[in-house]
Each structure stands twice: as C-alpha cells, then as structure tokens.
C-alpha cells in the first residue's frame, strides 16, 4: 500500500470531476455521466488488489 496509489486516486478524482464539469457545460450530460462512471471503474480496478490483500490479512489475523 504505497502512498503513490493514494496520490494517483486523488489525481484521477480531480480529473474526473473537471471532465465532468467541462462536459456538462458543453451540454453533453450523458457523456459526462459516462466519464464519471468510467473514472469510478478505473479507480475500483486499481483498488481491488488492495482490498483482496486486506481480506487476506483479516482472515489470517483471525485464523479463519
């Protein structure tokens, strides 16, 4: 769990919100929605490895 991941996720969050606003201002709301969803999916994919490691750690801590 490096600090780089947190910075990357923060940067992607900022970019997605800027893209969202630009697209909404240009009148293309459906595409704004799509980019928001896409950003969400990308971040989820980046985070899912860490989540699975978290579950492994929890399982090993409680000897389940």
């Amino acid at each position: 769990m490096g600090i780089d991941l947190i910075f990357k996720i923060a940067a992607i969050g900022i970019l997605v919100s800027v893209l969202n606003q630009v697209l909404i201002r240009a009148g293309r709301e459906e595409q704004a929605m799509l980019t928001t969803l896409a950003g969400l999916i990308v971040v989820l994919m980046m985070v899912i490895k860490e989540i699975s490691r978290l579950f492994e750690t929890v399982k090993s801590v409680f000897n389940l």
Partner: protein
Amino acid sequence: MIKIFGCIIVFAACALIGYFLASSKYERVKEIRSFIQALNMLETEIRFALCTLPEAFIKISLLVDEKTGEIFKLASENMEKIKTNASSAWKSALEEKGTSFSLNSEDFLILKSLGDSLGNSDVENQVKSIRLVVERLKNQEHKAEEERYKNGKLLKSMGVLGGLTLVIIFC
C-alpha cells in the same frame, strides 16, 4: 527518466490530437467566409466588368487567400487548356482540390450547385444564382460558427484532459 519522457510524449500527443480536431472547425468557418468573399467578387466581375469567365476567375484567385484562390485558378486553367465548359471546369476543380479543405459535404453541394448556372445563362440569371449561393453559404457560416463555438473549446479541453488522464493512469 525515460518514463517521464514517455509520459510527456503521450500527453503532448493527446493534446495535439484535441487541438487538431478543434482546428478543423475553425478552418471551416474561415474557408466559408473566404468563399463568400470570392463569390461576391465574382458577382461584381460578371455584372460590371463583362470579361470572360476564365479571366474573372484568375482575377479573383489573386485577390482572395491562397487555398480558395487555387480552386479558381484551377477552374480557369481547365477552361483555357482543356476547353471544357464553365460548369464542368468548376465542378472538377472543386473535386480535385476539395479534399484539402475542411469543408462539409453540404458546403460542397452548395458550391457545386453554383457550377450548374455558370456560363449557362445571361448576366442577370447568373448574378441571381450567385446571390442565392452566397445566401446559402452565409447560412452555413452561421451554423459553422455555432458549431465551432460549441465544440471547438470542448475538443481542445478534452484533448488535454484525456492526455492527463492517460498519463496518470499508466505512469
């Protein structure tokens, strides 16, 4: 080090793609305007100067800017050297040089329709049809302005932002 260099190249490429796509919209507005100007001059020439069409075309090609002038020059050359009549010279000049313009297919239809009346009727009718084509082109210019306003900025910012996103996700 090389990684940073690669990121910069990817970002620059995406930003340039955005600028390039947006610039064709800008170019279209400018080109329609220069065609309107050229056709106004053509009307003046036909109405008042009473010179032949090839001469009129050459005069106009010197007065408007480069790209538009080339079509007129090519049409005039077609008429002089290959001795085709005015409308097919105009149409073939449009088809040859047409790809280097960022004009729509609608714009080309309007310009081609000019060819149908060139050299085929008397002064009054030709002037009337030139007026008609100029009016339609002005309409197109309005629409192109709107489109440029809506999409030009959008495409530029999307290029830059998309490049940033790619760089951040993959570097």
